[in-house]
């Protein structure tokens, strides 16, 4: 049944319906409503997870390490500085192969201090060994959370589900929340192959000497690579269960367009409206949604747009001194595989509103081969 809900509330209801065992959180804007709602469900007796109010994000994630290693299905959410404070633990989670699922309500990074949306926070921990998914709207974000547990537990790799802070977390829109009964059919109870148990002692994250460390890291790398197939398969299965499409990449617009815009997250909606307007004035432009930053769907992207003339990548994040993060990923993937001119456009940093007019301005950069990112803020 369709409802109208705030994004944060929709995520909290989805987490409740997934049936997690332990939630551990430290509040930070714009993630706060999610963890407040989860605390309320617990206080009102609507949920039976353990809810731990941690003293910091570092502690919140560390608590989940213990809980997950003991065999619990776990959840947390954070943003921005909170994610950065977790960084050390994030690497441990992936290294210990703990299937923790976390929401990152994407927000800018200090300094200057800024509580608004961009996507700099998550990309900063891109290389930690987590699967990183991005939703375009709150429906997709909630659906990705259900998928995230399936993938995390099947691959023994943690998953971070990203959504644009405020732009999605604080927006009320129509959504279908999957009920717990339907989720149970899709997502069986969590049965870890190994767990901490005093009767059968094990060590997680043990010391590894130069003799073993490299192979263990390579194994994690190989498994992140292999997770792409699992994600694609589970996305297909998700559609069979729930009727809604999820995909690693999704092309929208005229297939014959020479120019295509690539992006992640909520800006895709505005891009789609902008290119529909351009179509009315006779200008063909396509848009490609990328839903996963890790594993990176390079082959899928090349298959969709490798034959295009101009690719404009819109990023709400950048590697200072270089270019947008997604743009860099595309250039790396396209090398030797495509002749497209890739232009990195930076927009929406620190909550700067992105309008259709600004998207059209970004599209005018098509074919202008530049080595430096173009900033469009007006």
């Amino acid at each position, binding site marked *: 049944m369709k409802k109208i809900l705030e994004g944060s509330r929709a995520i909290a209801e989805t987490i409740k319906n997934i049936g997690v065992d332990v939630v551990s959180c430290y509040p930070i804007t714009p993630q706060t409503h999610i963890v407040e709602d989860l605390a309320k469900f617990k206080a009102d007796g609507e949920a039976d997870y353990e809810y731990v109010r941690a003293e910091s994000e570092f502690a919140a994630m560390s608590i989940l390490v213990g809980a997950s290693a003991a065999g619990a299905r776990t959840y947390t959410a954070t943003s921005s500085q909170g994610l950065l404070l977790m960084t050390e633990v994030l690497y441990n989670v992936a290294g210990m192969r703990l299937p923790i699922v976390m929401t990152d309500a994407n927000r800018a990074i200090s300094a200057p201090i800024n509580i608004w949306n961009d996507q700099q926070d998550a990309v900063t921990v891109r290389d930690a060994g987590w699967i990183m998914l991005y939703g375009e709207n709150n429906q997709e974000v909630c659906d990705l959370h259900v998928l995230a547990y399936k993938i995390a537990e099947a691959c023994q790799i943690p998953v971070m589900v990203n959504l644009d802070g405020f*732009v999605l977390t604080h927006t009320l829109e129509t959504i279908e929340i999957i009920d717990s009964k339907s989720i149970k059919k899709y997502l069986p109870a969590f049965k870890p192959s190994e767990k901490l148990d005093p009767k059968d002692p094990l060590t997680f994250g043990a010391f590894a000497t130069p003799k073993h460390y490299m192979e263990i890291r390579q194994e994690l790398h190989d498994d992140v690579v292999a997770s792409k197939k699992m994600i694609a398969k589970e996305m297909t299965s998700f559609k069979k269960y729930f009727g809604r499409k999820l995909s690693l990449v999704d092309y929208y617009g005229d297939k014959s367009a020479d120019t295509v815009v690539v992006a992640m997250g909520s800006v895709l909606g505005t891009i789609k409206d902008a290119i529909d307007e351009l179509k009315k004035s006779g200008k063909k432009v396509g848009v490609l949604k990328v839903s996963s930053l890790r594993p990176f769907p390079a082959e899928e992207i090349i298959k969709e747009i490798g034959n295009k003339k101009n690719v404009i990548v819109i990023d709400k994040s950048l590697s200072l001194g270089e270019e947008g993060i997604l743009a860099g990923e595309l250039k790396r993937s396209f090398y030797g595989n495509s002749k497209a001119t890739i232009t990195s456009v930076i927009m929406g940093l620190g909550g700067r509103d992105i309008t259709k007019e600004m998207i059209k301005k970004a599209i005018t950069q098509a074919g202008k081969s530049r080595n430096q990112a173009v900033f469009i803020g007006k």
Partner: protein
Amino acid sequence: MIEIRIHGRGGQGSVTMAELLAEAAFYGGKEAQAFPNFGVERRGAPVTAYVRIDSKPIRLRSQIYSPDYAIIQDASLLNDGKILADLKRGASVIINTSKKASELSLPKNLKIKTINASGLALEIIGKPIINTILLGAFAGSTGLIQLSGAEKAIKERFSAEIAEKNIAALRRGFEVINQN
């Protein structure tokens, strides 16, 4: 797509009003989106909230720069002359004030209606909580949302006692707006 902008002050519930409006539209069978002008909310500071209503799913995420409708919860916000400057030509505006539209010096190309929502709220709710009066006024003057949808939104959000007062406020706003 219909775009609505709500201007109020921190504490007046501009965001709640945007949400109630979107919920009412949704219960009337429409797609709807509501969001605040994200900021650091402070009591008394100007607050803006946005609503979009459409028959198909809403994808656009930008703020609303030239709305079809505006609701002004505090008439002192009109003093700088900027708030109504970017509305669509012929846009409809509802202003919470005890004055008549003709007594206010406002742009000529707008359809202005006024309602003493603060006074009515004190009378009906006993507190200057103006949201539901204005929601009723919006329903009455635009027909974009129905009373039934707005009542459902109010019942879902508030306890029975508070909902009852607010539904009375909603209905009064609905009746009064077309009398001015």
